[in-house]
């Protein structure tokens, strides 16, 4: 009996070691969200003080170079995907931020309203968490244990191994092994510029996805997450600001009451973090690409210019206040 269990344990150990070696070996993951690794590396490589944008995919087309020119500080666009738990991502990145840095949070409206509509299904949760776990594996393992889902550690581990092996197969058979051996998303430099802005525009599709959706009423969690980030910033010595995301006029008009309520809550809870009002980033539907969160290039040009102005005046005001 002892021999049987010994052999079984040796087999399990061997498989675990193989998996760990695959994960530890530098290489790409065949999934766009693996860009979190590249974006983290980009943040680390930029000298402070930096202007760091965090949020969902609404930030992808941001015009980082224009913002850099206007504000005269390096811009790091960490925006990637709305379903990534932003406060966790923020906490993971907080260790890389220093005094003088300014973090601008631009969360999608769907994420600002109450939890009901935001809850992720299990597949999506694992899909997102696997990449977050690459940033701080220990923290995510502990979280899985604490919330009573310890098997998620194995699921995430297996899923990451699969994505790495698929990248290896894809680029290995294409004769581009060097692409598979670079950490993060394959061909990051083709997808994102030096600021982390997407090099590709969103496809223009009609009807816009998400148009006509009525948001839930804002709840206490709407401002709690942002408050947490502002407090953390204070603790680490950097500034956290909040900008409303872009919204099509039709969605804005449809949800005027809920958005007004949200604005009142945020104004009350985060008076010094807000740099604009929802109406400031309400644009004609025609400027949006495929969803209510994604602006076309033309729309983004306007949004980035507005953001630059809002940030500039906030930074000037802060400086005057400081003097």
């Amino acid at each position, binding site marked *: *009996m002892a021999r*049987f269990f010994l*052999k079984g344990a*040796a*087999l399990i150990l*061997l*498989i675990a070691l*193989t*998996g760990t070696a*695959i994960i530890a070996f530098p290489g790409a993951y*065949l999934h766009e969200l693996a860009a979190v690794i590249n974006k983290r590396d980009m943040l680390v490589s930029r000298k402070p003080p930096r202007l760091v944008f965090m949020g969902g995919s609404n930030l992808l087309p941001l015009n980082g170079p224009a913002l850099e020119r206007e504000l005269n500080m390096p811009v790091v666009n960490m925006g990637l995907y709305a379903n990534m738990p932003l406060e966790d991502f923020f906490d993971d990145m907080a260790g890389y931020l220093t005094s003088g840095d300014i973090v601008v949070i631009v969360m999608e409206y769907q994420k600002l309203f109450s939890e009901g509509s935001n809850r992720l299904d299990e597949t999506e949760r694992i899909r997102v968490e696997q990449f977050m776990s690459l940033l701080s594996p220990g923290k995510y393992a502990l979280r899985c244990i604490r919330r009573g889902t310890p*098997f998620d550690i*194995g*699921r995430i581990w*297996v899923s990451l*191994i*699969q994505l790495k*092996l*698929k*990248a290896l*197969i*894809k680029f290995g*058979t*294409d004769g581009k092994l060097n692409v598979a051996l670079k950490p993060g998303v*394959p061909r990051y430099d083709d997808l994102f510029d030096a600021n982390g802005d997407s090099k590709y525009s969103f496809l223009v599709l009609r009807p816009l996805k998400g148009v006509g959706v009525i948001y839930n009423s804002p709840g206490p969690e709407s401002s709690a997450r942002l408050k947490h980030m502002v407090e953390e910033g204070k603790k680490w010595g950097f500034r956290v600001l909040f900008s409303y995301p872009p919204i099509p006029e039709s969605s804005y008009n449809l949800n005027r009451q809920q958005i007004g309520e949200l604005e009142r809550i945020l104004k009350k809870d985060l008076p010094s973090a807000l740099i604009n009002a929802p109406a400031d980033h309400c644009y004609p539907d025609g400027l949006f690409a495929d969803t209510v969160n994604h602006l076309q290039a033309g729309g983004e040009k306007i949004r980035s210019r507005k953001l630059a102005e809002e940030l500039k005046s906030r930074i000037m005001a802060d400086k005057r206040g400081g003097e």
Partner: protein
Amino acid sequence: MAFISIQFIVFFLIVAVLYYAVPHRFRWALLLGSGMVFYGSSAPWYLLLLAAVTVIAYGGGIVLERQGGEKLPVKKVVLAAAIILLLGILGGFKYLNFFNSVISDVAALAGLNYPSRVLNFILPIGISFYIFQAIAYLIEVYRGAFHAERHFGIFALYQSFFPQILAGPIPRPGALLPQFREKHELDFESITEGLTRMAWGFFKKAVIADRAAIIVNAVFDHPHDYSGIYLILASVLFSIQIYCDFSGYSDIAIGAGRVLGFRLMENFRRPYLSRSMTEFWRRWHISLSTWFRDYLYIPLGGNRVKPARRQFNLFVTFLLSGMWHGAGWNFIAWGALHGFLVVAGIWTARVRDVAARVSGLSRLPALHGKIKQAITFLFAAFAWIFFRANSLEDALYIAGNLGSGVGSLIVNLVTGNRAAVRAATDISRNGLTLGFAKESYNPEMIILAVSLLVLWTVDAVEEHYGDAPLLRTKPAAVRLAVYYLLICGILFFGMFTSQQFIYFRF
């Protein structure tokens, strides 16, 4: 509870450990309880149905035995009544809506007003399997081939043994019931054999079947979007998917039984290596095909009747086998097609023999055998179109368009017209290529191709060496390497989707 889930692995480990830990006299109760938990975890009300079937079969068995050894008319009535009750339950859940819609269609054709209402029944998982299992028991008791089981707990365990309750293999009472009374000692050879068999089943399901399913679903759900070459690809892949899915399930069931010391009936013997459709049915879903042979075909007269009658009986058996699979015209068409292919095989036997002699193929038995295997596979793959298609209309469309665009594709390939070949093979839909994201299409296809090569190699080796556990004779290092590669293959290349086993629907 799905077989491919962490819940099942934990459940199975607990049951296996407890099974060997408790004294033999309590094991039946442990297994019965486990079966209830396993089956009831899908929907607790399923247990009521299972209990009803168990009570009917148990009571029916005892009443049948009390009538004595003679096949008296009373005994026949008891058997018929019990079978009608059981088939009534099956029919109520499985066929009522279908027959209702047929009556409605016929009434509409006759210009009559028949208010057809769809009854929202949920088909309980495994119902077709455990009802056929109960019928097999009743017939065996009626024939006097098996004594009625008096211990209700043991009989309930026979009906609810968790490794095989959801999709078979459909056991024969004589093969399974006595095993519940046998004392199974802790035997690590059997446990290793069982675990390896389970792992092979997981590999077939998670690595091959569920990967092939993505392509199959993409094409079969939108057949009008694809040209002939993709309809052929999807049909061939569905043949592989359903084989890996169902034989994978059977491997897990047989392996789980083996871990606990039980020997369940083999359900598949490399069916795609068959050289005729008759042989195919001796190798495919063996527990069901032998059920139909023993309890329908033979009572209808079997091989003892005149050839024409025999062929009619064969056709009827296959037609009913098609209906067993599902309440729909496509399943009936599938069964009828198989019936026709088997009967046509009998009709053409002499002509094929002459053709083989004239062409010289009979002097090259190896090549002749391979050609027969290929033709049998193509017939089976063609018939699967009717099984998989979402409707009979879709099946007829796919079957009728298998050749569309294939000729021009071949011409373009031969003439080197790359642009035309590229245009014909561009099958991206909504950013997906045959159901896969564009980025992952190539690696997924490579993994599928390699895993099919592994499957083919294992099947070829098993065909060559027979069913003897070959691995057991190999050195420990070789065995360990096989286990290691198998588990790594499952973990690192398995698709852990929510794709249910196909046969759970029946």
